[in-house]
């Protein structure tokens, strides 16, 4: 990263030289090497300078508090903006230039009106404070509307060259890589560079990936003291490439690579009634209410599928747009209707069999019997079904299904029904 460090120094350094004035505010946009930029700022700026990360200081009050603490002053007011102005205007420093660095500055736009006072700070308190903001996003995303504040000097850090990243990986090789294995480590770096830069362009993350891949890479090489030849290195790369398959991709993502599987796993700790309620909630969320009768009537033959919507082009399927809210009553009715389709053998709970077979008790009232309601409240408590209305509302409650297609479909299979037969939209 030597080149990049040089680029950063030449882009920012000229504003921070000691014996010349600094701008009132600087905005540094850097999408790839933001860590190195902040490192440079830390090395260059006076040690007293506050570095405030907006992910840590999550509101205006905290940001102001950090600034005041760093400069060891206190403001009288409780309002953050007034406190900032009052505190800093009392500041008696012995050096001429002072800095405030705010990282991830794009969040400042959510900090009720703090940005404008910060940008206008030197004008208001008549002291040479320089505000430095860094962000991955361009300044246009947080620029106050209507030109209410002066624009900062914009600095745009260029992207890192892949040669630079490669050198960076080589330089930071793990300590257990001996002299003899150096060329092997280079082979791994080559492999990572060619296979992973398409998926991830952050140098620090690539280093992390390389470090994590190293033990796996060197595993087949048992004689740790011997020096592998070029041919050996190629073989190791080949072996790793075959073995890695998903490894690289899984390291890249912040989600488990078996997410799809996890999503499809069955919530087996639920009661049968709750599971059936989940299927009902899925149908209620993804089917248009008007088609309920058609989709769930027993009398109609499954040939009715002809009537399903075909105009998939005009509007995306509900499965892609997400679940819709449904009312409590609709949920219960779909649940009741579903009872007719499920296999007898799959039912173990007494109440369910009872409900299904005894037509006398199969009424609205009976559907809302206590244990069904209890299951519903359990499902909402564990958020498998979300309640989308205020908790104090008892009339006209609305819910939303929070399980995916795979879970619902597997659940339906366990009841001996096919989920897609009940779905209106099967694109």
């Amino acid at each position, binding site marked *: 990263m030597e080149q990049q460090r040089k680029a950063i120094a030449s882009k920012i350094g*000229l504003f921070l030289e000691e014996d010349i004035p600094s701008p009132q505010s600087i905005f540094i946009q850097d999408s790839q090497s933001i860590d190195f930029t902040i490192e440079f700022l830390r090395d260059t700026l006076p040690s007293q300078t506050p570095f405030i990360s907006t992910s840590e200081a999550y509101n205006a009050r905290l940001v102001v508090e950090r600034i005041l603490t760093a400069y060891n002053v206190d403001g009288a007011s409780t309002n953050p*903006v007034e406190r900032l102005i009052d505190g800093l205007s009392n500041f008696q420093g012995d050096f001429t230039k002072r800095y405030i660095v705010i990282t991830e500055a794009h969040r400042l736009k959510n900090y009720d009106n703090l940005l404008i006072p910060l940008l206008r700070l030197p004008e208001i308190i008549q002291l040479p404070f320089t505000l430095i903001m860094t962000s991955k996003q361009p300044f*246009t995303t947080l620029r106050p509307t209507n030109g209410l504040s002066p*624009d900062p000097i914009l600095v745009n850090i260029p992207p890192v060259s892949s040669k630079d990243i490669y050198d960076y990986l080589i330089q930071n090789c793990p300590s257990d890589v001996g002299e003899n294995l150096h060329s092997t480590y280079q082979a791994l770096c080559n492999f990572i560079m060619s296979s992973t830069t398409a998926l991830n362009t952050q140098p620090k993350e690539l280093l992390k990936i390389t470090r994590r891949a190293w033990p796996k890479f060197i595993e087949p090489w048992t004689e740790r003291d011997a020096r592998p030849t070029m041919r050996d290195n190629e073989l190791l790369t080949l072996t790793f490439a075959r073995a890695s398959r*998903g490894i690289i991709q899984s390291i890249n993502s912040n989600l488990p690579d078996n997410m799809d599987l996890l999503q499809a796993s069955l919530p087996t700790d639920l009661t049968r009634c709750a599971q059936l309620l989940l299927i009902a909630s899925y149908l209620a969320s993804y089917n248009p209410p008007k088609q309920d009768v058609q989709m769930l009537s027993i009398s109609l033959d499954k040939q009715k599928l002809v009537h399903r919507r075909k105009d998939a082009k005009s509007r995306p399927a509900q499965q892609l747009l997400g679940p819709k809210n449904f009312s409590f009553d609709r949920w219960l009715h779909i649940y009741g209707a579903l009872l007719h389709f499920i296999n007898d053998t799959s039912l173990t709970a007494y109440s369910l069999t009872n409900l299904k077979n005894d037509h006398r008790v199969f009424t609205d009232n009976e559907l809302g019997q206590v244990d069904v309601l209890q299951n519903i409240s359990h499902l909402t408590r564990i958020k498998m079904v979300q309640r989308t209305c205020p908790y104090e509302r008892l009339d006209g409650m609305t819910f939303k299904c929070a399980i995916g297609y795979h879970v619902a479909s597997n659940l339906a299979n366990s009841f001996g029904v096919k989920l897609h037969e009940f779905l209106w939209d099967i694109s």
Partner: protein
Amino acid sequence: MTDNKKRQREESPGKTKTKKSKVAIEMYEPAILTHKQCLLATFYGWDSQALDEESENAATVNDLSNVIQGSVLHGEGNSALVVGGRGTGKSLAIQSALSLSSEERFIPIHLHGSVQTTDKMALREMARQIRNRGGTVSSLDALDKEDHLIDISQSTLTALLTLLSASALPIVVILNEFDLFATHARQALLYCLLDCAQGGQRRGGLAVIGTTCRYDAIDMLEKRVKSRFSQRVLHVSSPRTWTEWSTLARNALSCEVIEGVPHMSAFEHKWEIHINALFKDPQFDLVLKMLFDMSADVQTLYRVLAIPIANMTTETPFPSAKDFLLASMSQRPIDAHQLIDTLPLPALALVIAAKQISSRDIDQFTFELVNKEYDDWARKTIMAPTSRSIDITSTGARVNISVWPKHVLMGAFDTLVDLNIFVPVASANAIASGEMREYCKHRCSIENGEIRQAVEKRKDIPTALYKWGHSWN
């Protein structure tokens, strides 16, 4: 001078220069530094720049100064409004007018409509500034209590009178963003200030000067407020003709001879020659013309001029026209393709997918929707499972475009949200309240044409993806 630059100089001690010329340049070092300090202090706004005597704004300054003098010397109550676009020099005009009366003793109070968003904040800020100027505002302590609500105009008036009586000196209140003060409830502060100024309720003299860039600011005032305003509206404007503009730039870059700096006048002579040459350079001319045509904003001009000046070293004491051109490029908002250039391929694929969706008149999408769009395309185009995507050739491994699994795309989606390329449509707490991530609605902040350009410019992009990026209208 940073270590870095020193090192650079040591490494390449003037490739073609003789020893003599090197000595000659080093001789000027103090002069260059002083010159740089002077220019940058003005460009960065630490020192106020001198006002051109012949410009239209000089008349405004004159009027303003009369208004202030009236209050400061004769104890009058005055009010005025300075109207002009952004960056035309409203604040500069006021500053110049204030500095004309700098021998007299008075208290200037600066308020910003964008910072003091309520009357209460404005009053407290006034109290602070009066206190800093030695006024006694102990009677104002009631204001600092949060439970003391000043919400009816009567009590604002009381508070204001207490404030203004805290010092016997004349007071000049400058209301930046005057139009924003007019949006406060019942315009209480404006009413009271203008009432005080007009009614002469204050013995020491009071001037209220507003600045605004809204030409209809007066119409925003309520009738009772408007009638108390003196209707004195002054205008400032940025240079309207090209000659004025280039004179302004010429003056901004001129070198001031400062006594006591060795070789300053000799350097000044060289600098003037260089600047004259610069103004004849078509590239520099282009920079000035672009700025004149697009913004005619003095502050923007200064921002652009500041960068090559800050880059001045003893090695390169005379910035070239190309430096100015690059500086003007860097101060423009970043192009979308620069953002897209460093995106990982899955993220780029999602951006293209989002645009494909938008071409069907669906402008908001969920993760599932772009995922499906990408998946459909990838399966159709590639027909290869993920595992085969890494194909080993003799030159090493190479990643082709592949059907990336959902979790990789989810990571890419997060990257895009992080870069503000995909902007969430729902409120931020939608996710906090349990909205499923896959179904949060987003829109794409980059235009179709920009994506097409970015795809064209990017070199490492697989052909299939390139074609897909081009296949919509």
